[in-house]
């Protein structure tokens, strides 16, 4: 039973990493055609991507969106997680349902709805609208990450602080905040990653300045070149590094408590 389970898990994880492995393989394959047999090793595709000024500009636009989105969603997610887990609000169930809503609504529907709202308000599309739109769909994720750290904090620490005469604010700042710090960092990193890879909302809400994901999508539709593999590898590696850091931080939070 256990051996069969191991085999199945290996197969499933193989399935999860097969596409990524394939991209990595073709990103260094010296051929225009993305097909077997492989013909040799080249760094040409990476050189092409790194020398592409248009993609470089897109990357900077992505950063200009992802930094504020990550900051905003971490702060709001922390507030939401505190309200859900630590300080009982009266409308907890309703509040949780509201937080879940952006996750439940199909992205494209949310994107067109926001587009109509901005049009009715006379707000023209810009990076600000992208930041606003992305923040809403990333908020549920940061909330869950911060909440997963908060629920592991021992409540007796706060009771002890109160018994020792600490005010609500003081015990928050000196006890809760240091313990949730790791959760905040993990949430920030994940939000950054999610923001940089979001396509639908970015494409619908951005104006003239186009982020990397939008540029990649148009390349992808019109000319499928091996240099896209190289770009994909760079993005995946960057994301993997960030996610591994975030997970490490979050688990360190678990051990500290």
């Amino acid at each position, binding site marked *: 039973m256990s051996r069969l389970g191991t085999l199945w898990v290996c197969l499933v994880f193989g399935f999860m990493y097969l596409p990524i492995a394939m991209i990595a393989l073709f990103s260094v394959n010296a051929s225009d055609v*993305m*097909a077997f047999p492989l013909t040799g090793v080249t760094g040409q595709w990476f050189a092409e991507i790194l020398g592409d000024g248009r993609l470089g500009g897109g990357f900077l636009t992505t950063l200009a969106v992802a930094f504020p989105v990550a900051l905003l969603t971490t702060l709001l997610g922390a507030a939401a997680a505190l309200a859900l887990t630590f*300080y009982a609000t009266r409308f907890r169930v309703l*509040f949780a349902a509201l937080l879940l809503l952006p996750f439940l609504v199909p992205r494209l*529907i949310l994107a067109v709805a926001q587009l109509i709202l901005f049009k009715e308000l006379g707000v023209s599309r810009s990076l600000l609208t992208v930041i606003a739109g992305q923040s809403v769909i990333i908020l549920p994720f940061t909330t869950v990450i911060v909440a997963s750290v908060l629920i592991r904090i021992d409540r007796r620490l706060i009771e002890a602080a109160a018994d020792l005469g600490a005010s609500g604010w003081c015990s928050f700042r000196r006890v809760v905040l240091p313990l949730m710090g790791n959760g905040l960092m993990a949430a920030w990193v994940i939000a950054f990653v999610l923001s940089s*890879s979001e396509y639908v909302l970015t494409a619908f809400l951005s104006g003239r300045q186009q982020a990397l994901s939008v540029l990649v999508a148009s390349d992808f539709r019109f000319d499928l070149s091996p240099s896209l593999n190289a770009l994909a590898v760079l993005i995946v590696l960057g994301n993997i590094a960030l996610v591994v850091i975030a997970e490490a931080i979050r688990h360190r939070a678990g051990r500290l408590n």
Partner: protein
Amino acid sequence: MRPQSAGNWLALPVVAALGALCLAPLAILFAYSFFSVDFVTISHDPSLKNYARILQSETYRGLIARAFGSGLLVAAITAVIGYPVAWFLAKRAGAAKTMLLTLLLVPLYSGDLLRIFAWRVLLGAEGAINRSLIWLGAIDAPLQGLLFSPLATHIALTYNYLPFMVIGLWLAFESLDDAWLEAAADLGAPGRDRFRRVTLPLTAPGLIAGGLMVFVMVVGDYLTPQLLGGASGVTVISAINDLFGTAFDWPLGSAIAWTMLAILMLCFGAGATLIRRSSLVAEGA
């Protein structure tokens, strides 16, 4: 500061942000669904015409039914694939658990676009799978139907959302006490009965939660069918996109969008009720 009022103050900015950027847009979309298009302007006389059109149109009814069919199909496939994985992660992985969970989530963060791109490289006529099959002598000519087909779409959808199913199931397996299974075995229940009458009912909440997540995301997926489905890539979501773009019929697009939202909310409500009921069973066990 009393805890209750602190909680309300903390919730306030979150509610304001979600109200302005999620509830308000959806409310305006709802209002638009009762308007109509008059040549190139939008007439604000409210009517139910758009909803009547959806009900009468076989195309839209078919697209909506197909979206929900795909959702159910992919939820079922991910459940079958993910169930043993979740069991293994919770009960057999031991020290490797944390690492395996992280590994499971990593592909998720590479973004929809890159994953779709990878599947295109894999499934194309000159792609890795076709070439390998030819090399192995299994086929003579590349299988043309692999890419740009419902098959390609559903493979990629399964790939995209499998981790969500595994996480839902894993949480259920984590809270499954092995003592119940030992008790069932002591009482002489054979393996099949132990699974059917103990394991399955006790992990049902996770199964429903994971299934619901996968279902909702498959129904709302725009890019995957669009970029991998070829002619079959026309979905109800892409129809909404067309109505807001080239076809310029925002009111009809809004009505279809709200029809989808209403059905999704019903499914979600039903799922939440089922989860609550099956958790009660799990607690009472």
